[in-house]
């Protein structure tokens, strides 16, 4: 339309031939079509912002539990390539399996916790969560003394110093339930409970329906609303397939007891950073472990929201 014919003669003066189009008709039609296609392309401009296209390789990937070790090695290699391309760091990505005779339990001493939130940020650093927007697995609730009413908890406290008078602090994260509601609702079986008690997520199998987020009574699951942003120099290159490898937009994630550390025998990051020694982790099937000692000797008083029947592996206790 914009490039109108240079011919000054009106349309009627030209006599169209019987057998086909005139040159003018042809030019006009093609101009219209060209403009239309160009406009359509421009109108689809917002699609330019789409990233993370699924590759054929990724699309044809098998379900985690059906993969052979060779399949898994290929997948791990793909992840290594992807991470290196995006962050410029060659990571060590492993697929760590649960150990025999191990069931993980976590104990948190409410007498000792001072509410400093170091665990929150050590967790973010260890597990490659998005920094902006923030994704954090641990929430620290500041609770008034004399009550365990979670409604009175406040997690945005911004005090000059902690601990404050007349408050105690209650960190909440994934409770690694024995009877996990999130696993029951998952329509794609992208999340399941392993035999060492960790409820894991296969980020490549998650479709982002967020049913699990709705089912969890502890608000422990997080959704990647945007593409996660992690500064290159803060990426933790020690990764596990079911653990802290970088996630993509549109998948769920949550605390997995630092699978990349704990299935290699180490303590989780939150345990090692706690300045008050309030966090204890170990194998409950080992009678010598710290957690067995706590469950035997301490006033373990709560599985959070015991009445909903999820039976957490996360215990809160008091000293004395």
């Amino acid at each position, binding site marked *: *339309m914009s490039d109108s014919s240079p011919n000054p003669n009106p349309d009627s003066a030209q006599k169209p031939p019987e057998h086909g189009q005139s040159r003018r008709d042809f030019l006009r039609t093609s101009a*219209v079509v060209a*403009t*239309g296609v160009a*406009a*359509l*392309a*421009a*109108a689809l*401009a*917002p699609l330019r912002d789409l990233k993370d296209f699924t590759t054929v390789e990724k699309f044809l990937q098998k379900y985690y539990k059906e993969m052979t070790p060779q399949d898994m090695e290929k997948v791990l290699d793909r992840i290594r390539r992807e991470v290196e391309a995006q962050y410029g760091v060659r990571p060590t990505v492993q697929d760590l399996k649960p*150990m025999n005779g191990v069931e993980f339990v976590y104990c948190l001493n409410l007498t000792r916790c*001072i*509410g*400093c*939130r*170091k665990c*929150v*940020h*050590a967790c*973010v*650093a260890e597990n490659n969560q998005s*920094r*902006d*927007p*923030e994704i*954090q697995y641990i*929430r620290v609730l500041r609770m008034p003394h004399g009550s365990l009413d979670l409604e009175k908890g406040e*997690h*945005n*406290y*911004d*005090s*000059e*110093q*902690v*601990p404050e008078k007349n408050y105690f602090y209650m960190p909440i994260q994934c409770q690694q339930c024995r009877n996990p509601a999130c696993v029951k609702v998952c329509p794609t079986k992208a999340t399941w409970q392993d035999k060492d008690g960790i409820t894991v997520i296969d980020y490549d199998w998650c479709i982002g329906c967020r049913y699990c987020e709705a089912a969890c009574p502890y608000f422990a699951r997080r959704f990647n*609303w945007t593409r996660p942003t992690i*500064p290159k120099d*803060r990426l933790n290159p020690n990764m596990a397939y079911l653990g802290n490898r970088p996630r993509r937009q549109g998948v769920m994630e949550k605390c997995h007891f630092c699978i990349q550390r*704990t299935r*290699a*025998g*180490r*303590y989780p990051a939150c*345990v*090692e*950073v*706690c*300045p*008050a*020694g309030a966090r*204890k*982790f170990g*194998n409950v099937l080992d009678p010598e*472990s*710290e957690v067995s*000692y*706590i469950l035997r000797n*301490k006033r373990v008083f709560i599985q959070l929201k015991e009445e909903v029947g999820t039976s957490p592996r996360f215990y809160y206790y008091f000293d004395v």
Partner: protein
Amino acid sequence: MNSRSKTSTVLVVLTLGFCFLACSFLLNLWGHPALRAPVPLVDLAFIEPSTARLSAADLIKAKADTSNFECYTCHDKKNPVKIKYDTNEMIILPTEHQDLKMGHGRHNRNNNCFNCHNEKNLESLQTRDGRELKIEESPQLCGSCHGPTFRDWEAGVHGRVSGYWNRAMGGFERKTCPSCHDPHSPKFPPRKPAPGPHALHTAVASSPAEQEHH
């Protein structure tokens, strides 16, 4: 002829529509959604797993400067230390030890250096039942009064443990009491908390008036 002109009308309308959409996207007529304020990266001090303080055992292990524990550069071995008290029976610290804050317990029964330090050898410690201990063996000393806490500590339940939960796969480190507690004033010191969570949806610049309104 009629149907043909109809077709071209439809095409023209569509083209104009697309042109409008294209222009609006390219010229950004509708603007971007309001940007969130960027979330600052957390200070690395909140991530590193240091303890509240450094104990003598930590310093010796790190081969750091332990000159603070060499008492006899100032004290004389032949001249036993005499503790001075004021009229309230509170200890008078000499100027060289003014940095100490005496606050062990809510009573003043610890108002005596030699409850823990050994008066016969200032560079060592002593329990009330007369055992002499090296300066880095303080848990034994603390445990001689704080029995249940010592029992917990030995089980790895009181205080910080790092390394491997699976002792067969690697070593672990248990911190000694003075790594967190100042022996002269053992209450765990308060500290500044790390920043709280930043909400996904926060107004960029909400004026104070607006905040009051909410």
